[in-house]
C-alpha cells in the first residue's frame, strides 16, 4: 500500500529527467498510473465491504510519533476509488486538453503529486501523517492554480488559495497535535477507542476549533469559501479533479473521519450545521447569478460542500449515510460538468453562458454528458442524484435537533438553486440556436469527450441500479463514518412520503427558476456582494500589512542610537526588576580595603577626565580626556599589583591615541545634535544603567572570594610551567588558548584595516 500511495511521487520525480520525452502522445502512458491504482484499490472492494479493513505499517519517524500507517476502510476506499477513478478519466482528458503545452511534464508531475498526496490523506491512520499529505495537497494545488504563471490573476489566486488552506492547515496541525497529546496516540483508530477522554477534556473545544479551522478552509466553507472560485484559474482538468471532486473534499473527509473521535456533541453539531447551512445556501444562491460557467460550478461546489458539512454536523446515521452517498453523487456530476465546461472553453474560447447556446448540434456526445450530469445534479429519479437528495431530506427531517423546519427549508432552497445551477451549466450551452460566431466549433478528440460521458453514465448507472455500489462501496463508507459495522442498507424508494414531495417541489421550482430567471451578474445584488468575505479578508490583509509597515518602520527606524537606547532600556528594566525584587542590599566590609590620598586623587582625576570627555565640544579634547582616563587606570593597575596590565594599558592607550589623532584630523567640527530633552532622557537611562551595575557589583563584592584556581596557578607557575610572572604564565600556558585566539582577533583586525583602506571595488563588482 505504501508503494501505491507513493507511486505518484515517484512518477513525478521521474518526470523531472524524463519529462521532455513525454511531450506528445506518449503522455498517454501516464494514464497508467491512476488506472493501475484504481485497479489496485478496486481489488480491495470485496474485503472491505465484508468488513475487513486493511492495515499497513512502516516505521518512519517513531520518535516524533509519525509512522507510515495506512488504514483502508470503507470511507477511505470510497475516496480512493474516486481519486483514482476520476483521476484516470481526468488524466485521459488532460492528455488531449493540454496537448502541445510546453510544460506538459510539469503539469502531470503536479497532478501526480496531488493524487499521491490525496491518497495519503484518505489512507493515513496517523493524524500527523494525514496532515503531511494534507499540506502536500495544498502545495500541489498552489502550483496547479498558478500553472499559467504569466497571468497575474492566476498567481494571485494561487497565493490566496495557499494562504487560506495552508493557514487553516497550521491550525489543523495544532489541533491534531493537541488531540494526539490528549489521547496519547496519533492513531485515529486508537483515538476512537479513547474518544470519551477527549470529549470530556477541558481542551476539547480547542481541539474542535482547530480541526474545524482546517476542514473549513480546505473545504471552502463560509467565510473561507472565496478562494475556490479564484482557484478556477487552474486548467479545467485541475478544477474538475481538485476543486470539485477530490481536494476540497479532504475537509469533508477529515470531518467524517474524525466523527467517531470528536463528533456527536453539541460543540460538534452546532458549528457544523450553522456553517454548513450558511455555506450551502450562500453558494447555491450566488451560483445562479454567475455568468462564467466555471464560476457557476465553483459556487455550486461550495454549496455542495456546505451540504456535506451540514450533514456531518447533523450527525445522525441517516445524515452520515446521506453524506457518504452525496460525496459520490457530487463527484460524478460535478466532475462531468467541469469537464464539459472545459471542452466548451477549449473549443469556443469562452465560458460566458450568455454567449453559449445550441452547441448540441456540433458536439452531441458532450451535450449528452452535460445533460445527464445536470439531471443527476437536479436529482431526477433514476439518477444517483435522486438518491442523494432523498437521503438529505430524509436526514434533515429526522434529526433530533431543534429548528428542524428551518434546516429542511434551507436544504430545500439550496437544492432548488442547485438544480437551476446544474441546468445552467449542463443544459443551457447546448440548447437553443447556434450563434454564427460558434459555427466553426467542432467536436474535440475523443480523449476529451469520452471521460465526461463515462462519468455521466456512471451517475445514471448507479442511480438506476444502486444495489451493488450501495452495498460494496457506499454502505461500508457510511459504516466507517458512524463507526458502526452493521450499517443499514441503502434504500432508493421510500414510498410516497414527505421526502418525495419535497424532491418534487425542488425539481419543479429549480426548473422554473432556470427557465424564468434572466442571467444577471451577482454584482447587481448588493446584498450578495456585501457578504462577500473576500473583501473582509482583503481588508484584514491590508490592515495587517499596514500595521506591519508601521510597526517595522517604527521599530527599525534606521537610527543606531535609538536601537541602542532600546537595548539599554530593556536591560535597565530587567536589571532593576531583579535588583529591586532581590534581597535587601547589605554592605559587608569584609572585602573593603583602606584608601589613600593618592588613590583618591587618581580616581578624582579620572572622574574629572570622564566629565571632560563627555562634555567636551572638541574632539581633540575628548581624545585627550580618554587618554587621561586610560593613564589613570594604568596608575591604578600599578597600585593594585598589576604591572603587566599597566604596561599593556599604557602602550595600547598611547597607540589608540595616535590612531585617533590620525583619523580625526580631517573631520569637520564636532556638533551637538541633541536638544536638552534628549540629553536628559539619555542621561537618565545611562545613569540608571551605571548605578545598577554599581549596585550589582557591590552585591557580587559581598560574596566571599574563592581562590582555588589562582592558588593552583601560584603553586604551579614556576614548578610546572617554569615561569615566575604568573600573569604571563597564564597568558602563554595555563590559558594560552585565550591568547592564541586573541592574537587571531588582532590579525583579523589588521587584515580588515588593510582591506578597508586599500580595497576599492570595480564598478563591475556590484555585489
Amino acid at each position: 500500500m505504501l508503494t501505491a500511495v507513493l507511486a505518484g511521487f515517484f512518477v513525478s520525480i521521474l518526470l523531472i529527467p524524463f519529462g521532455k520525452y513525454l511531450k506528445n502522445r506518449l503522455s498517454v502512458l501516464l494514464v497508467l498510473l491512476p488506472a493501475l491504482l484504481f485497479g489496485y484499490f478496486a481489488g480491495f472492494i470485496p474485503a472491505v465491504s465484508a468488513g475487513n479493513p486493511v492495515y499497513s505499517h512502516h516505521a518512519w519517524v517513531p520518535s516524533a510519533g509519525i509512522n507510515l500507517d495506512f488504514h483502508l476502510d470503507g470511507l477511505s476506499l470510497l475516496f480512493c476509488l474516486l481519486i483514482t477513478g476520476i483521476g484516470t478519466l481526468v488524466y485521459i482528458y488532460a492528455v488531449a486538453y493540454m496537448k502541445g503545452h510546453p510544460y506538459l511534464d510539469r503539469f502531470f508531475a503536479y497532478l501526480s503529486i496531488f493524487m499521491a498526496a490525496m491518497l495519503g490523506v484518505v489512507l493515513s491512520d496517523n493524524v500527523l501523517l494525514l496532515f503531511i499529505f494534507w499540506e502536500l495537497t495544498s502545495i500541489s494545488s498552489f502550483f496547479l492554480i498558478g500553472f499559467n504563471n504569466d497571468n497575474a490573476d492566476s498567481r494571485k489566486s494561487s497565493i490566496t488559495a495557499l494562504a487560506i488552506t495552508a493557514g487553516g492547515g497550521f491550525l489543523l496541525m495544532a489541533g491534531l497535535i493537541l488531540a494526539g497529546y490528549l489521547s496519547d496516540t496519533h492513531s485515529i483508530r486508537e483515538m476512537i477507542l479513547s474518544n470519551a477522554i477527549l470529549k470530556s477534556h477541558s481542551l476539547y473545544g480547542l481541539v474542535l476549533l482547530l480541526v474545524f479551522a482546517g476542514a473549513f478552509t480546505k473545504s471552502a466553507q463560509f467565510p473561507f469559501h472565496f478562494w475556490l472560485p479564484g482557484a478556477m484559474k487552474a486548467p479545467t482538468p485541475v478544477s474538475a479533479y481538485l476543486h470539485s471532486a477530490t481536494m476540497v473534499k479532504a475537509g469533508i473527509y477529515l470531518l467524517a473521519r474524525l466523527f467517531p473521535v470528536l463528533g456527536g456533541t453539541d460543540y460538534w453539531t452546532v458549528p457544523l450545521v450553522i456553517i454548513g447551512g450558511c455555506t450551502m445556501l450562500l453558494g447555491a444562491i450566488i451560483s445562479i447569478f454567475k455568468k462564467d460557467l466555471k464560476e457557476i460550478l465553483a459556487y455550486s461546489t461550495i454549496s455542495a460542500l456546505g451540504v456535506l458539512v451540514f450533514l456531518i454536523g447533523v450527525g445522525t446515521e441517516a445524515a452520515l449515510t446521506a453524506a457518504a452517498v452525496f460525496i459520490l453523487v457530487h463527484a460524478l456530476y460535478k466532475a462531468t460538468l467541469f469537464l464539459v465546461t472545459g471542452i466548451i472553453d477549449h473549443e469556443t474560447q469562452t465560458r460566458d453562458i450568455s454567449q453559449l447556446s445550441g452547441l448540441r448540434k456540433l458536439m452531441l456526445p458532450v451535450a449528452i454528458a452535460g445533460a445527464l450530469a445536470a439531471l443527476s445534479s437536479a436529482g431526477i429519479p433514476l439518477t444517483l442524484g435522486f438518491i442523494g437528495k432523498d437521503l438529505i431530506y430524509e436526514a434533515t427531517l429526522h434529526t433530533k435537533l431543534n429548528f428542524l423546519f428551518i434546516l429542511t427549508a434551507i436544504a430545500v432552497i439550496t437544492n432548488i438553486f442547485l438544480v437551476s445551477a446544474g441546468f445552467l451549466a449542463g443544459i443551457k450551452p447546448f440548447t437553443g440556436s447556434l450563434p454564427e460566431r460558434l459555427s466553426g466549433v467542432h467536436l474535440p478528440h475523443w480523449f476529451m469527450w469520452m471521460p465526461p460521458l463515462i462519468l455521466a453514465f456512471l451517475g445514471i448507472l448507479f442511480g438506476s441500479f444502486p444495489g451493488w455500489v450501495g452495498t460494496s462501496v457506499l454502505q461500508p463508507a457510511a459504516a466507517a463514518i458512524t463507526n458502526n459495522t452493521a450499517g443499514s442498507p441503502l434504500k432508493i424508494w421510500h414510498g410516497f412520503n414527505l421526502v418525495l414531495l419535497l424532491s418534487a417541489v425542488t425539481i419543479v421550482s429549480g426548473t422554473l427558476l432556470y427557465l424564468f430567471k434572466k442571467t444577471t451578474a451577482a454584482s447587481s445584488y448588493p446584498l450578495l456582494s456585501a457578504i462577500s468575505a473576500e473583501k473582509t479578508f482583503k481588508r484584514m490583509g491590508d490592515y495587517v500589512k499596514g500595521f506591519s509597515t508601521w510597526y517595522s518602520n517604527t521599530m527599525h527606524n534606521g537610527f543606531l542610537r535609538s536601537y541602542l537606547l532600546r537595548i539599554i532600556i530593556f536591560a535597565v528594566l530587567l536589571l532593576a526588576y531583579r535588583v529591586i525584587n532581590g534581597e535587601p542590599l547589605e554592605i559587608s566590609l569584609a572585602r573593603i580595603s583602606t584608601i589613600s590620598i593618592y588613590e583618591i586623587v587618581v580616581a578624582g582625576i579620572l572622574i574629572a577626565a570622564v566629565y571632560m570627555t563627555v562634555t567636551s565640544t572638541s574632539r581633540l579634547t575628548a581624545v585627550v580626556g580618554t587618554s587621561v582616563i586610560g593613564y589613570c587606570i594604568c596608575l591604578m593597575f600599578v597600585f593594585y599589583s598589576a604591572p603587566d596590565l599597566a604596561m599593556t594599558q599604557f602602550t595600547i592607550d598611547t597607540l589608540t591615541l595616535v590612531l585617533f589623532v590620525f583619523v580625526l584630523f580631517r573631520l569637520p567640527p564636532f556638533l551637538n545634535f541633541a536638544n536638552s530633552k534628549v540629553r536628559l532622557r539619555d542621561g537618565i537611562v545611562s545613569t540608571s544603567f551605571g548605578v545598577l551595575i554599581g549596585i550589582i557589583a557591590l552585591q557580587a563584592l559581598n560574596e566571599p572570594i574563592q581562590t582555588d584556581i589562582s592558588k593552583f596557578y601560584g603553586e604551579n607557575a614556576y614548578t610546572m610551567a617554569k615561569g615566575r610572572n604568573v600573569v604571563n604564565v597564564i597568558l602563554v600556558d595555563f590559558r594560552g588558548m585565550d591568547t592564541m585566539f586573541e592574537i587571531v582577533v588582532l590579525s583579523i583586525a589588521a587584515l580588515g584595516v588593510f582591506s578597508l583602506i586599500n580595497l576599492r571595488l570595480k564598478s563591475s563588482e556590484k555585489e
Partner: protein
Amino acid sequence: MEILLLILIALLYSTGIYMLLRRSMVKLLIGLGLLGNGVNILIFLLGSITKGKPPVIDDKASLFRDIYADPIPQALILTAIVISFGLQAFAIVLLKRVYVLVNSDDLDDLNTPEEEDI
C-alpha cells in the same frame, strides 16, 4: 577603596552608554572605549584587589611566600584590552571610511535608503 572603584565603574558604564547614544560616530567610539574600561575595572574589582603584591614569584623561590594579587583577572583583562584594541582600531578606521563616504561623522548621514539595495 572598593567603594571608590564602584563609583568609577558606575560612572564609566553610564558615561559610556551616554556616549553610545550620541549621533556622532567619534562619540560612539569614545563610548565603547569608556565601556571597555568600565568592564575591565569591574573584572579587576570583583577578582578582589590587593595592593603592592604583584603575582610575580620572587627570585630563588619557587612558590609564593605570602599573599599575592589574583593573577586570573589580570590575565582576563589583558586579553580583553588587547581584543578591544583590535576592535577599536578597526572601528576607528571604519570611522575614517565613514568620513570619506559622507564627509561627516554624523551617523544619520550614513543611512542608505532601501532603494539603493542591490
